[in-house]
């Protein structure tokens, strides 16, 4: 489920400054506004807002939900960070993953966390995963067309058991059992779909997720860094592991001395 993100910087021509003003006054607002790659460095640098190139995945199995992600962020061809937190803890029993625009994801997940807490205070019970994902998807739908770039999965455990939804900035919201988002997702899907069984143990599921992320980072240049794996169970989420993918490579594929077929010897001095 790869979101069709388009990298557009939405620079409003209006003098209006707050996010909410620009959302309401849609009259003469050119919602997105391509900045041509003309001339100086500065234009290009500005266009390259931090994007989360990504390999994120989540799946439901018998014991709960596993959520995993890499940690690389890029700005054009430059790796701006290898340690981005792409799995956000919305509350102790719900996680969200980030893909797309880093600032968009961070801000709206934080906002979602606030709304979930307000729901708890107003209704004296925790919000369901269905509810939380709907809140986020409605917000994103109202900004549809304005250039936000968000491809997120909301995973959690509520009264109905494990829940997993995919929400994106086009306004889409899908319920499912297995998702992978990002440029590395085809590679992650390959490994994930191959190894998936509903009745795995928690350790097996975490290992499957870790391998899938590792393989995505191996083949996709835009993914890398640290592969984090989280497990969401009836008692909430728990971070299972955080491993550098460079080290995972040698753990999975240790260096073996290759057999020498023909050894070169010095020519005999004639």
């Amino acid at each position, binding site marked *: 489920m790869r979101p069709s993100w388009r990298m557009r910087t939405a620079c409003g021509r209006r003098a209006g400054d707050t996010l909410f003003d620009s959302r309401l006054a849609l009259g003469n607002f050119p919602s997105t506004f391509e900045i041509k790659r003309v001339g100086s460095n500065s234009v290009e640098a500005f266009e390259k807002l931090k994007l989360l190139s990504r390999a994120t995945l989540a799946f439901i199995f018998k014991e709960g939900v596993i959520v995993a992600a890499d940690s690389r962020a890029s700005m054009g061809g430059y790796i701006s960070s290898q340690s981005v937190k792409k799995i956000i803890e919305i509350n102790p029993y719900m996680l969200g993953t980030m893909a797309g625009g880093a*600032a968009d994801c961070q801000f709206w997940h934080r906002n979602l966390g606030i709304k979930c807490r307000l729901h708890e205070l107003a209704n004296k019970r925790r919000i369901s995963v269905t509810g939380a994902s709907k809140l986020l998807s409605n917000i994103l739908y109202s900004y549809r067309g304005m250039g936000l770039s968000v491809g997120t999965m909301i995973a959690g455990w509520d009264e109905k058991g494990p829940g997993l939804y995919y929400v994106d900035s086009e306004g889409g919201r899908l319920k499912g059992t297995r998702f992978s988002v990002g440029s590395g997702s085809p590679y992650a899907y390959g490994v994930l779909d191959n190894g998936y069984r509903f009745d795995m143990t928690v350790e097996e599921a975490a290992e499957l997720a870790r391998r899938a992320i590792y393989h995505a980072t191996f083949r996709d240049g835009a993914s890398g860094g640290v592969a984090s794996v989280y497990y969401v169970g009836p008692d909430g989420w728990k971070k299972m592991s955080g491993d550098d993918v460079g080290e995972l490579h040698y753990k999975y594929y240790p260096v073996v001395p290759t057999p020498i077929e023909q050894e070169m010897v010095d020519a005999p001095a004639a």
Partner: protein
Amino acid sequence: MALRGDWVYENNGGTCVAIAGSDYCVIAADTRLSVGYSIYTRDYSKICKLADKCVLATSGFQGDMKALQKNLAARHLIYQHQHNKQMGCPVMAQHLSNTLYYKRFFPYYTFNILGGLDSDGKGCVFTYDAVGSYERVGYSAQGTGAGLIIPVLDNQLKSPSPLLLPAKDAVTPLSEVEAVDLLKDVFASATERDIYTGDKVEIVVINASGIRQELMELRKD
């Protein structure tokens, strides 16, 4: 340099760097302000002290930088009135992120680094993009010379990622004096190869005893 009638930004160049230590934080920025190939002034401070233990360095468009600093300083004053204390560095970090994101559709063209001490007295550096995505790191560089400086800092200071489990500390084990020396070296090198960096570098050191500032001359060509 409005190449199109509606392009309201310009890049004034410059570089900012910050390093966090176990009980200090150093932030440095050069003092050159340029537009295109011209230097407007050699003496422009890109560093702003927001709170007792919190300093902001910004590169990018200096008009937006000034507006952002004023905005943050005003909000800090309100915070002090409401809470009867100064804003701590992680608090200011999230606040800056929100301030930048509120202008998501007409952004501040600024690349910020926030440096200071957190509530435990450990150094912290937060690095931002133009629309507010932020991350706490052990060191950072932003601006036109960042691409020249970050590889050197990665080489000298590379610290374990905060995402690793079991968790490892991200701050550098260097001492304050060594960190300041490293910054001076790194700026001198960036000045050699980046036309927008030079003139002087302003180095601000925050530690338990307060904030200290020094200036170092760089190449003026």
